[in-house]
C-alpha cells in the first residue's frame, strides 16, 4: 500500500539537521532545542500513524520515491517499506530517539557547540531510519554507512581532546572492516542470485522470493548461502561490536552520554541483529553460519561480562554490558530464535538507554566525574536518578517482572533446546550481569561517601527534562517485556505473532516443566548475582582488596581487557605500519628502479633515433641540396648577363636547327 508518510518520517529529522547546522547559532539555543526535538517527535507521530495504517490495512506500507539506479542489468529505487519488523524498529528509534533528544536539551544545556550536537543527532536519526525503512539492500547500506559516519562524528564530539578524536577514528576504521565484508556478502548474493534465477535485484522482496537459488551454488568450498551470510555476519560484528570487532565500542564512550545511550546502546549497535532478522530466511538456509553466530555471540557475551566485572568507570561498565547483551542477541539469532533476538533488542533499548541516561545524570550531577571509586552514597542526593538507575539494573539483571527477564528467559529457553554448553555460557553471563550491574549501583549510590566536601555540596539533581525522560524509560523497562510471556504462563505472546509476517519464527518446543525449572534457575542465578554484589560491596563480607591480591593475575588480565587492545595494536596497527614500510622500500627500490631503467632505455632509443635523423635523413636532404647547388653553380656561368653571348647562343642554335632541318627534312624529303 502506497504511503508517502514514510518519506517524511526520515525527512523531518534530516531537514531539521540541515536547518540546525546552518542557522543554529542565529536561532539560538532555545529554538534549536525546539526544532531538533520537535522534528523527532513529529517523526515519531508520523511513525505511529503509519504503524496504525499498517495494522488497519494488514498490508505492508511502501513508498517508492524515485528511480535511483537505472542500468541495463537492474533497477533500484529509493523506496521505503514498513512491515512488522520495520514497525518495531521505527517505533524504538523514534520513541527512544525523541526521549533522548529531550534529555539532551537538559544534558547539553551548557555546551557551546549545541547546534553541532543536535545537527549530528538529527542526522543520525535520519540515517538510522533510512537503514530500517529501506526496501532494498543498497539503500539500507546507505543508512548503514550513514549511521557509522554519525557515530564517528559524535564519538569525536569533544575533539579538542586527542583521545576522543582517536576513539572516533578507531570506531570508523573497525567498522570499515565489517562494512567491507558486508558489501562482499551483499554483492555475492546479488550476483549468484542473478546468475541462478535471472533476477538481478537488491529488493528485499525479490531476495526473499528468489534467494533459495543460491543454496546449491558452491563458493570456496561452502554453499553460497553460507558464504553470503558469513560475510554479512562479519559486517554485523563490526556494527554490533562482536568478537573480534568489538574493540571500538568501549572507546566510543568518549562521546556525550546521551549519544552513548542512543547510538551505542539502543539503536545503531542493534542494526546487526536487524540485518540478520531482515534476512532471517537467508540465514535459515545456512546452519553452519548460525553455528558460528551462536558461538561468537555466546563467547562475546561471556567475555565482555568478565571485563565489566572490574571496570571502575561507570560508562565503561555499561559499555561492556552492552557488548555482552549484544552477544546475547546474536546468541539468540544463532540458535534460530530471531524473534527472541529482536525482543531483546527492544527491551535492551529501553533499559540500556535508561541506564546510560541515568549514568549521564550521575555524571552531570558530579560535574563530569565518571569514576565510581570517587562516588558513593549518592542515593540521598539524587533520588530520582538513583531510583531509575536501580530499575534499569533490575531490568537488565533479569528479575521478574521487569523487561529484561522476559527477553533473557526466552533466549535461554531457546538456547537450551539447541545446545546445553551455550546455555551454560548464557546462564553464567546472566549471573555476572546481575553482579556487575549491582556492583555499579552499590559503588555509586550506596556505601561510604568518597567525595570531598566541596564537590559533595555541589552535587545536584538533574533538571526535570532529564528526570522525566528517566521515569518514562523506567516505566518502559518495567512493562516493555509484557508482550511476550513465557509459554507456560499462557499469557500474551503478541510479539512473535507480530513479527511472524517478516521474520522467520521457530517456536520452541519442550515441556512446561522444563521451561518452568529453567526460568527458576535463571531467576535464581540473577538473584544470587545481586546478593553476591550486596555481600561484597555493602556488607563487605570479603575485602575487595584481598580478593584482588589473591586473584591478582586474573584481575590484571580483566583490568587490561585481556590485552586485546594491546594485541590489536601490535598485530594490526604495527603490522600495517611494517607492511607499509616494506611496501615503501619495494616502491623505492624496485618500482622506482624499473621506472628509472625504463627512462634510461628510452633515452638511449631516442639517442639512436636522433642520430639516424641527424646523419642519415638530414644527410640525404643536405646531399640533394648540395647537388642542386653545384649544378646551379655550373649553370650560372652561362647566365652571365652579357646579352651578346645570349644572342650568339640563340643564333648558333638557330643555325644548328636549320642545319638539322635541312639535313633530315629537306634533303630526305
Amino acid at each position, binding site marked *: 500500500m502506497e504511503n508517502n508518510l514514510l518519506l517524511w518520517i526520515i525527512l523531518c529529522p534530516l531537514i531539521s539537521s540541515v536547518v540546525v547546522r546552518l542557522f543554529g547559532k542565529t536561532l539560538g539555543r532555545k529554538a534549536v532545542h525546539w526544532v531538533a526535538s520537535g522534528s523527532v517527535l513529529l517523526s515519531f507521530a508520523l511513525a505511529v500513524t503509519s504503524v496504525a495504517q499498517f495494522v488497519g490495512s494488514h498490508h505492508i506500507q511502501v513508498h517508492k520515491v524515485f528511480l535511483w539506479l537505472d542500468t541495463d542489468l537492474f533497477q533500484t529505487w529509493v523506496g521505503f517499506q514498513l512491515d512488522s519488523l520495520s514497525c518495531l524498529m521505527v517505533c524504538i528509534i523514534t520513541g527512544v530517539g525523541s526521549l533522548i533528544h529531550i534529555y539532551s536539551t537538559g544534558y547539553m544545556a551548557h555546551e557551546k557547540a549545541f547546534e553541532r550536537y543536535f545537527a549530528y543527532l538529527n542526522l543520525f536519526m535520519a540515517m538510522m531510519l533510512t537503514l530500517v525503512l529501506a526496501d532494498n539492500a543498497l539503500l539500507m547500506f546507505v543508512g548503514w554507512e550513514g549511521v557509522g559516519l554519525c557515530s564517528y562524528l559524535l564519538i569525536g564530539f569533544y575533539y579538542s581532546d586527542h583521545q576522543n578524536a582517536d576513539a572516533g577514528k578507531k570506531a570508523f576504521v573497525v567498522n570499515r572492516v565489517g562494512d567491507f565484508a558486508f558489501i562482499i556478502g551483499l554483492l555475492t548474493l546479488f550476483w549468484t542470485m542473478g546468475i541462478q534465477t535471472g533476477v538481478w535485484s537488491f529488493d528485499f522482496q525479490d531476495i526473499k522470493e528468489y534467494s533459495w537459488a543460491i543454496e546449491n551454488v558452491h563458493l570456496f568450498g561452502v554453499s553460497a548461502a553460507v558464504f553470503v551470510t558469513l560475510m554479512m555476519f562479519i559486517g554485523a560484528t563490526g556494527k554490533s561490536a562482536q568478537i573480534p570487532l568489538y574493540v571500538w565500542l568501549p572507546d566510543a564512550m568518549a562521546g556525550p552520554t546521551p549519544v552513548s545511550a542512543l547510538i551505542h546502546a539502543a539503536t545503531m549497535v542493534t542494526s546487526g541483529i536487524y540485518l540478520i532478522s531482515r534476512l532471517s530466511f537467508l540465514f535459515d538456509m545456512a546452519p553452519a553460519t548460525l553455528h558460528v553466530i551462536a558461538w561468537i555471540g555466546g563467547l562475546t557475551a561471556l567475555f565482555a561480562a568478565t571485563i565489566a566485572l572490574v571496570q571502575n568507570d561507570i560508562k565503561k561498565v555499561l559499555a561492556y554490558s552492552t557488548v555482552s547483551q549484544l552477544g546475547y542477541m546474536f546468541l539468540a539469532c544463532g540458535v534460530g530464535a530471531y524473534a527472541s533476538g529482536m525482543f531483546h533488542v527492544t527491551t535492551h533499548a529501553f533499559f540500556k538507554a535508561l541506564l546510560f541516561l541515568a549514568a549521564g545524570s550521575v555524571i552531570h550531577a558530579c560535574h563530569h566525574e565518571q569514576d565510581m571509586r570517587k562516588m558513593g552514597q549518592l542515593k540521598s542526593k539524587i533520588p530520582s536518578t538513583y531510583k531509575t538507575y536501580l530499575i534499569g539494573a533490575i531490568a537488565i539483571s533479569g528479575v521478574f517482572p521487569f523487561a529484561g527477564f522476559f527477553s533473557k528467559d526466552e533466549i535461554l529457553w531457546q538456547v537450551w533446546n539447541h545446545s546445553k554448553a551455550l546455555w551454560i555460557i548464557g546462564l553464567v553471563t546472566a549471573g555476572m550481569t546481575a553482579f556487575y550491574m549491582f556492583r555499579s549501583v552499590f559503588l555509586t549510590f550506596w556505601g561510604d561517601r568518597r567525595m570531598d566536601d566541596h564537590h559533595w555540596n555541589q552535587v545536584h539533581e538533574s533538571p526535570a527534562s532529564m528526570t522525566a525522560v528517566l521515569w518514562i524509560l523506567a516505566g518502559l523497562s518495567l512493562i516493555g517485556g509484557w508482550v511476550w510471556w513465557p509459554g507456560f504462563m499462557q499469557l500474551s505472546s503478541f510479539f512473535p505473532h507480530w513479527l511472524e509476517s517478516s521474520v522467520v519464527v521457530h517456536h520452541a518446543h519442550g515441556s512446561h516443566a522444563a521451561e518452568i525449572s529453567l526460568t527458576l534457575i535463571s531467576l535464581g542465578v540473577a538473584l544470587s548475582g545481586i546478593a553476591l554484589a550486596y555481600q561484597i560491596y555493602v556488607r563487605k563480607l570479603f575485602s575487595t582488596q584481598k580478593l584482588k591480591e589473591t586473584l591478582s593475575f586474573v584481575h590484571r588480565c580483566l583490568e587490561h581487557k585481556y590485552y586485546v587492545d594491546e594485541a590489536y595494536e601490535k598485530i594490526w596497527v604495527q603490522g600495517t605500519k611494517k607492511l607499509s614500510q616494506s611496501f615503501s622500500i619495494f616502491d623505492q627500490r624496485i618500482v622506482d628502479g624499473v621506472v628509472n631503467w625504463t627512462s634510461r632505455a628510452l633515452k638511449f632509443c631516442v639517442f639512436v633515433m636522433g642520430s639516424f635523423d641527424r646523419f642519415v635523413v638530414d644527410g640525404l636532404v643536405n646531399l640533394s641540396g648540395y647537388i642542386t647547388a653545384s649544378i646551379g653553380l655550373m649553370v650560372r656561368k652561362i647566365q652571365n*648577363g652579357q646579352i651578346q653571348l645570349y644572342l650568339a647562343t640563340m643564333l648558333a642554335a638557330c643555325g644548328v636547327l636549320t642545319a638539322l632541318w635541312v639535313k633530315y627534312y629537306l634533303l630526305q624529303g
Partner: protein
Amino acid sequence: MEMAGLHSYLLIAAFLFCAGSACVLMKRNVIHMLMGVELIFNASALNFVAFSRFAPSQLDVFAISGQVVALFVIVLAAAEAAVALALVLSLFQMIKSSDVSKMSSLKG
C-alpha cells in the same frame, strides 16, 4: 636590259644579315648594336620584296603580301628604334655608359 636575278637579291640580303649579325654580336656600344639590328630588319625586308617581285604570278596574293610585310617591317623598325633608344637613354642615365658589357645586372 637584262634584269638582275633573284639570287643576287638574296645574296645582298644574306650579306646584310651577316653584317648586321656581326655588328650585333661584336660591337660594344649599344647604339652600334641597334644599328646592326636595323641591318638585319632590312635584310629580311629585302628578302620579302625580292620574293614578291619574283613570284610566278603578279596577281597572286603572295606577290602583294610580300610588299605589305616589307612595309610593316619598316614601320616596326621605326617603332623599335624609338623604344630601344628610349631604353638606351634611361640605361645610360643609370650606368653612365653605353658599353653593353657593363649591362650585366641580370647575371645569374
